[in-house]
Each structure stands twice: as structure tokens, then as C-alpha cells.
């Protein structure tokens, strides 16, 4: 029994919780991507850097707040600064749309042109963020880091193995769930949400129904930018902020969005977890777990060496898509 519990704890500590954390972080990012794709019908490569931008502003404000001696006690101060960050990101997003994407909408350009434009935007944001805050690691997490620490857990349960739950992770997971439900409800049932879907379905007909395209686009960017900032900040709180990492997050985020069914809020969540868990579970060495379960494996019992974790997550995606070509939730064609 004890052995079993230990095995369970080990598994939870090294596979389940990390997977959950990473999954939720990806999901939040994927939500923004999937929304922009769903409504504006292009994959926004600037999303990673928009995340970085929003986070950067939040960080600057956080520092200022801490400087002023304002904190949130156990909770990270960044949460106080978050709204400002969101406003900044939204402003930036709307500005970009005004300067870049609107033109192509009027032109009725092909989706791929939007994508390339977004690559251009990505470069620009890339530069701006580094110009302002530089390329270095920035840490802005204060307050409690752990809900449950390994040591605490051991002492409490008296098990040989420990378990840690980080506060940012908990927040991330909760936020992710809330946001998804909210977004899903909004798109599915609210008047504006329906208008947005109508717009993405058939622009001309939307006009004929008296839907104001500019409003739809604006709302989309506002939500997307807000999501990007939230995702970025929560991620930064858990790990740390470095512009380059945020750019690197782009690929797994896209993977998550697509596998979940592009354009589907619920899919983004599912996709995020699929990617995260396939990375962690397939490359984890199950030696310890099995030992606790009374086996005596001679090797590490590692299905795949960690070098392949990123690649393998894609294999999984392909498999998923083989079984469900439209993604986990029926998404639309890219």
C-alpha cells in the first residue's frame, strides 16, 4: 500500500503536476491563437511576441509597484499590475491591426498574406521588446512560491516521496479553466459572439445582416491580446521571462491549437494538455515508480530519451489527427 502511494506521489510530482502546469500554460496561449484564427482566419505568428510585450509591461509596472511598497501578500504583485499590462497589449494589438491587418482585410487578401504580415509584426515586436527591456532573464515573481512543498508534504504524510504544488501553477490552471468556459459561452451564446462567428463564416453576408465588421475585429483583438498577456504573465511567474523563450513557445502553442481543433476554445485546452502530457509521459523514466510497485527494472524504463520530447509530441499530434482529422473538437480548415 505504502509503496503504491509512493509510486502515485512520484508519478504525480514528476509527470502529472508538471504536465498539468505546462499544459495549462500552453492552453492559455493556444486560446489566443485559436481565437484570432477562428474569427480573423489567419494564424497569428506575432502571438508569442504579443505575449512577451504584454508581460513586459506588466513586469515594469510590477517593479514600480514593489518600488512603491505595494504588494499582494502571499499572491504575486504581478496580478495587480496585470490589468495595466492587458491594456498595453490591447492598445498595441489594435494599433497593429489599424496599421497592418486592416489594409489586407479591405483588399480581401488571401489568408497566407495575413500570416506573412503577422511574421513581419512578429519581427517588429521582437525588436521593440528587446529594445525596451533587453533580452535577459527577468524575474518578477514575489509572494509565496509554493502551495505545497516537497518537505512539507513528506512531513505531513510521512511518505518517502514528496510532492510540490506551485502557486502560479494553481492560479494558471484555475484561470485557464475559467477563461475557456467564459470564452466558449461568449462565442456560442452572446449576441456579439454570434456576430463574430458569422463574420468569420461569411464576411459579405455579415455586412448584409448589419453586423459592423470593425467592431467584431476590435473585440477579437481585445480578447486575444488580453489572453496573450494573461498567458504570458502566468507563464513568467512560474518559470521566468525571457523574450526568446516566449518566441520559442510559439510552436507548441500552434501545435496545441491545431490538434485541439483550430478555432475551438475547448480544443485549445485539450490540445495544450495533449502536447504537454505527451512530452512528459513519453520521456519519463518509470524506474522509480515501478520500483515502488515492487518491480526491479534494470534499465531506466524510459520509452524515449528526452532529446526527442519536442519531436515526439508532434508524432502524437499526427496520430491524434489520423484518428480525428478535424482535431479533438471539430475545428475548421486552416
Amino acid at each position, binding site marked *: 500500500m505504502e509503496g503504491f502511494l509512493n509510486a502515485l506521489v512520484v508519478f504525480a510530482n514528476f509527470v502529472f503536476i508538471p504536465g498539468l502546469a505546462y499544459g495549462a500554460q500552453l492552453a492559455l496561449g493556444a486560446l489566443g491563437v485559436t481565437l484570432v484564427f477562428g474569427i480573423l482566419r489567419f494564424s497569428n505568428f506575432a502571438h508569442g511576441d504579443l505575449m512577451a510585450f504584454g508581460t513586459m509591461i506588466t513586469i515594469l509596472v510590477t517593479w514600480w509597484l514593489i518600488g512603491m511598497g505595494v504588494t499582494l501578500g502571499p499572491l504575486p504583485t504581478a496580478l495587480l499590475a496585470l490589468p495595466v499590462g492587458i491594456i498595453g497589449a490591447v492598445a498595441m494589438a489594435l494599433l497593429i491591426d489599424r496599421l497592418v491587418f486592416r489594409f489586407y482585410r479591405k483588399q480581401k487578401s488571401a489568408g497566407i498574406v495575413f500570416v506573412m504580415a503577422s511574421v513581419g509584426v512578429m519581427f517588429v515586436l521582437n525588436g521593440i521588446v528587446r529594445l525596451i527591456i533587453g533580452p535577459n532573464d527577468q524575474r518578477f515573481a514575489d509572494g509565496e512560491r509554493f502551495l505545497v512543498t516537497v518537505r512539507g508534504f513528506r512531513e505531513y504524510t510521512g511518505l518517502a516521496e514528496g510532492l510540490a504544488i506551485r502557486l502560479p501553477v494553481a492560479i494558471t490552471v484555475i484561470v485557464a479553466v475559467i477563461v475557456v468556459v467564459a470564452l466558449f459561452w461568449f462565442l456560442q451564446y452572446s449576441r456579439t459572439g454570434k456576430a463574430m462567428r458569422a463574420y468569420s463564416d461569411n464576411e459579405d453576408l455579415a455586412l448584409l445582416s448589419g*453586423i459592423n465588421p470593425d467592431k467584431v475585429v476590435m473585440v477579437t483583438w481585445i480578447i486575444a491580446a488580453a489572453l496573450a498577456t494573461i498567458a504570458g504573465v502566468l507563464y513568467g511567474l512560474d518559470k521566468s521571462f525571457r523574450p526568446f523563450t516566449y518566441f520559442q513557445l510559439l510552436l507548441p502553442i500552434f501545435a496545441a491549437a491545431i490538434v485541439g481543433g483550430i478555432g475551438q476554445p475547448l480544443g485549445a485546452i485539450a490540445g495544450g494538455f495533449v502536447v504537454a502530457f505527451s512530452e512528459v509521459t513519453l520521456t519519463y523514466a518509470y524506474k522509480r515508480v515501478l520500483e515502488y510497485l515492487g518491480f526491479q527494472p534494470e534499465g531506466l524504463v524510459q520509452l524515449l530519451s528526452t532529446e526527442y520530447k519536442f519531436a515526439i509530441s508532434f508524432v502524437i499530434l499526427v496520430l491524434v489527427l489520423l484518428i480525428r482529422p478535424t482535431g479533438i473538437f471539430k475545428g475548421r480548415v486552416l
Partner: protein
Amino acid sequence: MSFLIGEAMTGGYGGADILHSCTIAVEKGEIAVIVGPNGAGKSTAMKAMFGMLSLRQGRVMLGDRDITALSPQDRVKAGMGFVPQTSNVFVTMSVQENLEMGAYIRQDDFSDTMAQVFDLFPILKEKRRQPAGELSGGQRQQVAVGRALMTRPSVLMLDEPTAGVSPIVMDELFDRILEVAATGIAILMVEQNARQALAIADRGYVLVQGSNRFTDTGEALLANPEVRASFLGG
């Protein structure tokens, strides 16, 4: 001075002009029908009157207001409804949502209108939850018309509403259109089922290569042998 009138409209899609000083008008409570060969410019004329392509010359009047400069969505607010000829439903949205979108600009409770649409097109009630993209050709057409009816417009413009619908549905559609007209709404439609259409039309236009060839009452046009021969298939 008609309620809705496109006067001497000239313009096209950027390339050569499609319309050549073509004039279309319709009165409140009246049904006007446009017929003509394929590619004559009927749909273009409709789009022009709805502000979906820019005119080089001519103007569009609604009531006694010049709406030439208005954007399509503003014309909707001004009380115009339009059913395009192609891609006229939201394929990814359910039938019901399609109808709701029709009523987008309405703030009041439109459940009664929806009920009316449903008993006009019973099949739609059955399929209300199904994505419009999965409907049959004729069913789509019914959704499209239903969508336009939801706006409760003062002018209703229909581009070949009966293309691909079964005879019985066509009859009911025309019945309904007559009723709608009777309530004082101006109705302008393009039709290739020209004979049935002209039969209920107060006024008919024959367009050829972007300009008016004949303009007369429905019966008159039906009676006119030349028109019959070259446009109504004998």
C-alpha cells in the same frame, strides 16, 4: 418618384463597366422583377443598389434620401434587406443562428417573426439545429430568404430566391412574397423562373448587357412576344 430607385447606374467591378446607365425602381407595396440573360448584370445591379460595388455614375435613392454613399450595413439599418444569389447562408452556423443573424439589428423580441418563418418553411424548423452548410441546395435557399425576412425590412431585395427550390416551395414563396408586399413592403427580385415571377409582378425590367431593354407591367411583358421568345423561353 419611387420608394427605392437606382437611377442611371453605371459601374462595374473595376474592369470594364457592367452596368450602363441602368435604372431600377420599386414602389412601397409593389413587386418589381428583373429578368434577363445570364451575365446581363442583374445581380450586379442589385449589388449596386445595395452599395456592394461603387458606381461611377448615377445614384441610389431610398424614400427621398440619397443613399449612394451609404455602406451596406448602414443600408440595412436604413431598412433594406438583401438575399444574394450565391453564398447566402452562414454555412458553419445552425439554421436557427442564421435566422438570428438576420435579426441582428433588431433590438425587440423577434421570436414571433421566427415562428412565421418556420411555418413558411417547415423543413427549417426540423433542421434548426443543423449547420446550414449541411443542408440541401433548396433548403439553403429557404434559409437565405428566411434570414432576410427576419430583418423586417421596408425594402426586400431577392436575387433568384427560387433557384433550386421545388415547385411547391416556389409557390408558397411567391404567396408569401405577395403577402409581404401587401403589408406595404417594397420587393425587388431577380428571377429566372421568369414567367411565374412576372405573373405576380407589378413591374418588370428586362436587362440586357447592363442596360434596360424593356420596362413594363408584369402582364404586359408576359404578353410581349419578343420578350417571351428571347428571354422567357417561348
